[in-house]
């Protein structure tokens, strides 16, 4: 959006006389979360990361409601660490207002210590040279978040004593 649209009359006129205006569609959905995601999100609000565990010992974070292979209903819980390892990442150069950080950051898949699966979140680093697969990261809790995954503000690199980010 141009400054003219944001701060002026709400539209812009190009050299050829054609009008352009912002057209923003928004859907204010909400959803119920059910017993499994609900327990996970309640845990996050209490600064704990919960996982469901299947009979074969697989630890799911975020918690799965059912085992994808066996169909087993999952309702055994265990807490995992709020620290883990980046297993994959992608750079977000131009975040929009809906995203966790308002500056460039990395989307990361993080496997938390004790978990067998990885979860998607944002990693607060300034450039692509500061993120790599295998690096150690930890949860940064949001100071004041409404219920949901944004109880985790983002992840941040775990500083190793005597060096930079590992």
């Amino acid at each position, binding site marked *: *959006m141009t400054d003219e649209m944001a701060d002026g009359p709400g539209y812009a006129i190009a050299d050829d006389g054609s009008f352009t205006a*912002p057209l*923003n569609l928004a859907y204010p959905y909400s959803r119920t979360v059910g017993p499994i995601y609900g327990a996970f*999100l309640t845990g996050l609000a209490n600064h704990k990361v919960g996982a469901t565990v299947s009979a074969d010992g697989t630890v799911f974070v975020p918690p799965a409601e059912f085992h994808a292979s066996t169909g087993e209903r999952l309702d055994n819980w265990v807490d995992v660490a709020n620290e883990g390892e980046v297993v994959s990442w992608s750079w977000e150069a131009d975040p929009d207002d809906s995203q966790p950080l308002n500056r460039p950051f990395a989307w990361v898949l993080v496997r938390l210590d004790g978990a067998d699966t990885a979860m998607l979140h944002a990693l607060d680093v300034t450039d692509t040279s500061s993120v790599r697969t295998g690096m150690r990261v930890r949860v940064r809790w949001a100071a004041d978040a409404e219920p949901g995954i944004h109880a985790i503000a983002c992840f941040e690199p775990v500083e190793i004593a005597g060096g930079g980010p590992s």
Partner: protein
Amino acid sequence: MSNEAEDVLRIRTPIGVEYAWSAGTRSSAYLNGLLEGKLLGKRCPSCSRVYFPPRNGNCPMCGVLLGDDDVEVGPNGTVTTFCVVNVPFLGQKITPPYVAATILLDGADIGMQHLLQEVDAADVRMGMRVEPVWAPRDNWGPTMENITHFRPSGEPDVDYSDYAGQL
């Protein structure tokens, strides 16, 4: 955390998309006209029908691109059909009952919908002549809302045969 958080049962998941919408040259002429209090349409070079608001593309009857020249229509017009709104709905700005009318502006060949006020709904009829009531000029923008509503002009009714081709 000193206090346990309440159980999370529901979360907000708003989504949205932000577009920059361009009106194109012909609709832009119409919007520019509204800024000056003029009602500008475009004419089909093949069948001579005048479209208001003008389409950016082609005449749907002939398939040819509408002409470039502005054609000023109105400001008065004729009610060709109308609807008395009795039902409240979310976002409604006017208290029912009120009349949404299709108004054929003088010189145009398609009707446009606008609000009809300053008349009892029971007195509205096909063929009724109406005039626009403009908002204060300081409030004008490139929008048909510059006309707050139409009202009866007091001119004699138009015979059905005079607008039967534009219904």
